[in-house]
């Protein structure tokens, strides 16, 4: 190769790098849009869109529970979503995060502890057998008899009875406001109990539900393929012929796949991906709000000795600038929250929390009294935004005399440090699913109930009492007052400190897909409206 040719190659390489750099900064306004196409929806599928094609969706991780594909053991948002394609629940969540009918077409509440469900008469499992009241009662009883993470969310169930061919009555031992919302998530799915009990179906390896899709193949951490469940009421009107779900760990790769059309729809997570795709004419990137939220753990049991002092923890809490986190890590697309997720009915207002005064001078005085602090802050690498939040907090805490060393580790190491006994961290960041009822996530502030938090937080009887009150108080002003108090007490104790909501960034190729996507989500299920998707 001549010198001139070599120089040309080198110059071309430099030009490509320069162009990519320019493209990344091409638009100053590239945050994922939250503009609604209709009330409650970021996008509505267009009936005129060519349909019947293969739909390819890329997500970031696969299911991986010890119980395999048993939906009752599903513990992560992706598992809820993936298994929710084949299973249905008695209730569901609508675009306003209100409880809506699903396999239960209606229900009555003769008393505040009694729920009488009328079941759909056209629900058929993918093996062709019609769903019965025995399946519904048996599924809920199985969830109680073999406890999983979700069992506690169902509340104090006293009895489950078949009270008709298509009627099931659930009686609670005491009022429990989140009951209907808890029924709306995949772990409460209705299973083909007759076949399971007869040993004809191994529910841990095979998904047989009444949902719109049937899994035809699965390679762990690689790919799922689904076909329509011919027995589902929406089977004839599905806007795609097959669904492929690719598991793609790298976010930039998912963005590239959206651009080149090898994926129709992808979860992107980071708002930076909107910038990556800013000049892609055929790709839409939106920000779906979530009730999920990020929070800070302050280890008051085995962390730095000073963290046993509530005043020190509150000083740290009150020095954190949620607005700065929102702007710097989320491009202004999210909001501060208390223990009850911001935006849900009756939730407390973050602005009313004791720490919201953001009194840096007062916080610094408390830290000065203990002679300053040097703390570690642990985050895991799978969720890059945690490192961004950590950097903002590092600057916030430096202002009050707390030196923070950020430790980025893989999730296994993180899990060992944070949830191991003894926990070996001072500060750690993570996030909670926010669900669809403000009372549900409050459970985790009771270490005895949560279990995992018992290694790093003490909790208090006062807080436990408020959590119980939140469960048993009917929605309305009284419950809002309970939550306001609960949020304030948790904020003052500052053992688990809510920060900001955790929005999802989602993209799709507008040339090949017309999706329906709600503006808000409570269970991380961005394929909730899959039956309305139309893929060409």
């Amino acid at each position, binding site marked *: 190769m001549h010198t001139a040719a070599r120089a040309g190659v080198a110059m071309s390489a430099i030009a490509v790098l320069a162009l990519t750099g320019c*493209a990344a900064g091409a638009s100053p306004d590239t945050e994922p849009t939250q503009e609604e196409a209709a009330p409650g929806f970021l996008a509505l599928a267009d009936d005129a869109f060519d349909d019947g094609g293969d739909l390819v969706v890329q997500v970031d991780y696969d299911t991986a529970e*010890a119980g395999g594909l048993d939906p009752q053991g599903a513990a992560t948002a992706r598992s809820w979503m993936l298994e929710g394609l084949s299973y249905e629940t008695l209730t569901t969540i609508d675009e306003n995060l209100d409880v809506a009918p699903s396999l239960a077409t209606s229900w009555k509440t003769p008393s505040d502890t009694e729920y009488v469900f009328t079941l759909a008469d056209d629900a058929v499992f993918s093996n062709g057998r019609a769903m019965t009241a025995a399946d519904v009662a048996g599924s809920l009883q199985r969830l109680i008899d073999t406890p999983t993470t979700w069992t506690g969310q169902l509340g104090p169930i006293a009895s489950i009875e078949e009270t008709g061919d298509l009627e099931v009555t659930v009686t609670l031992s005491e009022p429990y406001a989140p009951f209907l919302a808890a029924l709306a998530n995949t772990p409460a799915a209705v299973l083909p109990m007759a076949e399971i009990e007869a040993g004809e179906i191994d529910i841990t390896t095979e998904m047989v539900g009444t949902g719109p899709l049937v899994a035809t193949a699965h390679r762990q951490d690689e790919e799922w393929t689904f076909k329509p469940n011919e027995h589902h009421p929406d089977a004839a009107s599905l806007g795609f012929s097959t669904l492929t779900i690719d598991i793609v760990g790298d976010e930039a790769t998912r963005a590239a796949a959206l651009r080149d059309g*090898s994926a129709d729809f992808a979860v992107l997570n980071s708002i930076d991906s909107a910038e990556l*795709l800013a000049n892609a004419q055929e790709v839409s990137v939106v920000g779906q709000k979530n009730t999920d939220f990020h929070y800070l753990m302050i280890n008051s049991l085995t962390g730095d000795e000073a963290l046993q002092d509530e005043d020190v923890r509150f000083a740290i809490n009150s020095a954190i600038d949620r607005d700065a986190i929102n702007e710097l890590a989320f491009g202004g697309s999210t909001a501060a929250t208390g223990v009850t997720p911001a935006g849900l009915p009756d939730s407390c207002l973050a602005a009313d929390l004791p720490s919201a005064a953001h009194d840096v001078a007062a916080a610094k005085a408390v830290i000065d009294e203990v002679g300053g602090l040097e703390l570690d802050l642990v985050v895991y690498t799978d969720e890059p935004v945690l490192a961004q939040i950590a950097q903002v907090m590092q600057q916030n805490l430096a202002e009050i005399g707390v030196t923070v060393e950020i430790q980025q580790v893989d999730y296994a190491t993180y899990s060992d440090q944070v949830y191991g006994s003894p926990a070996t961290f001072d500060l750690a960041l993570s996030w909670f699913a926010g669900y669809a009822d403000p009372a549900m996530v409050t459970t985790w502030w009771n270490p005895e109930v949560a279990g995992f938090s018992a290694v790093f937080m003490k909790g208090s009887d006062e807080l436990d009492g408020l959590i119980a009150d939140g469960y048993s108080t009917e929605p309305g002003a009284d419950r809002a007052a309970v939550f306001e108090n609960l949020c304030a007490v948790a904020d003052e104790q500052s053992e688990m400190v809510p920060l900001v909501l955790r929005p999802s960034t989602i993209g799709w190729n507008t040339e090949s897909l017309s999706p329906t996507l709600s503006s808000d989500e409570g269970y991380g299920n961005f394929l909730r409206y899959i039956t309305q998707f139309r893929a060409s």
Partner: protein
Amino acid sequence: MAVALWSLRRIGAALVTLVVVSVLIFASVRLMPGDYIDLVLGPLATEAQRAQAVAESGLDDPVVAQYFHWLSGVLTGDLGYSFVSNVSVTDEFAARLPVTATIALLTIIVTLLVGIPLGFSAALRSEGSAGAVGRIVSALGISIPEFLLAGVVVFAVSTLGLGVSVGRFAPFAVDPARFFGALVLPVTVLAVGCVAVVARNTRDAVMNVLVEPHVQAAVARGETPWFIIRHHVLRNAAAPILTIVGALIAVLLGGTVIVEFVFNIPGMGSYLQTALGRRDYAIVQSAVLLAAIVFIVASLLVDLIANALDPRLRLTGGSRR
């Protein structure tokens, strides 16, 4: 006889190395913080659920017993089961190994086809600006790590399009065109560093031979450059080039982990990375052992071939005088 003894000693050393490596792998995996039970069951699991999972996965046996159980399985071809998918590790490897092997093979082919001619060219034109540019480009290729180059390539594709796909891998049996299409970018990324290394070492090897007295004598006799290369340089330069190609296999084993993950290729590399993140012991242990076997066998073969090409190595225990 000497050759046979030397070869036997070399093979014996390789076997001992493998046993030591297996112990180190097993111990390293178990010493990593965090374990499968915590990860897969999650922080909300109860103690009873944890105890059940520990018992079902055999993790309540003594560690030494677990090692020998694993080792005996390996020797009989049973690599165990993935904790996560409950699928036989052997079956998983059978599906993924051909993909990684194809990537490695294609990379080696590209490396040899491009790197060796480039190295020869650089050696024969070592003086002047062409040689300088070659050295700079070569140094650049060696210096850029795969994860960075792969990231830049994906970034370029995700922002500019460029008409190249980074997703939608398909098995060869399903769609050969898509199979090879999906490997273009990973192989290119891996080949950049390998070509640079081989070109650089070929250049050095050839230049070392070119200054030897018998080559100088051939030049003095007026033999043509092509005749000198074929008869005096190629054979003498082959051994060091072969050695570096053998060493590149180790580089490739590490490199595929990165490129398979970044380009979403379901090979051994991405599988190992996911398993490592989940502390899926059976997969991690077996995959790393397999990598060690590949490297040790490759090194052994390189030594044997180099000895056949250059008998002086036998006399010096492998080093050149």
